[in-house]
């Protein structure tokens, strides 16, 4: 491929040529779950407002028929996002004390948190009999 790039010095690594690793994935997932929680919280707040004004019927379709499964799936995803962000947020608070920066342990904790967030999600939804 022809390129105008003539600078012989090594290029700064870019996201597309960067080997994925656990701590990178967990960092990106922290932002992604934060954004998911944002919209999840907005949705729940709007639902509380609709309840207060007796207008919850306008979103009743979300809990009926096949749509109920889409909503349930989204809420299970939101439960995972909250669980992940909570666990990884705790890790951020520990980092603020200057602890938990060893590479091997960091990789391990990244994977443990990604898997660990499944536990509260599963416990809650099994309890609900979903």
């Amino acid at each position, binding site marked *: 491929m022809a390129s105008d790039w003539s600078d012989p010095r090594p290029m700064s690594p870019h996201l597309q040529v960067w080997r994925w690793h656990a701590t990178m994935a967990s960092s990106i997932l922290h932002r992604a779950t934060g954004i998911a929680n944002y919209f999840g919280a907005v949705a729940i707040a709007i639902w509380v407002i609709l*309840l*207060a004004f007796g207008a919850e019927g306008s979103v009743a379709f979300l809990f009926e028929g096949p749509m109920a499964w889409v909503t349930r799936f989204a809420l299970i995803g939101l439960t995972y996002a909250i669980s992940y962000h*909570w666990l990884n947020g705790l890790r951020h608070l520990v980092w603020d004390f200057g602890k938990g920066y060893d590479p091997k342990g960091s990789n391990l904790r990244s994977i443990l948190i990604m898997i660990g967030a499944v536990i509260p999600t599963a416990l809650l939804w099994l309890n609900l009999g979903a």
Partner: protein
Amino acid sequence: MTDYRTPAAKVRGLGASGHASKHWMAHRVTAIALFFLAPVFVYMLAMSGAPDPAAARAFFASPMGAIITLLTLTAGLAHMRSGMLEVIEDYIHKPFTKTVLVLANSFLTIGLWLVTAFALLKLAL
């Protein structure tokens, strides 16, 4: 024309806003609040019988449900506002788009906080 302004006076106000450490600390304070509040709120809401409207109304109208929801809502929206501000400032560089999104984020989180708090009080009182 002679310019009497000192070099320092010319650059003052052009740099960083100087609010970074306050923003940093506020994000941690709301995080610690949510460390305690979020699990309690999620568990209580999940067990309340929601999304059944009557069960959800009873939950938000109960003193414990209303208080936990108000606390989680307040800490949550403050945390959401500062977190989303961070994301916008990191990824959106066009000044106009950035300003619009920063304003939208502030209006949405503050507005939603007031309206939802009003809705909760209406349900609870």
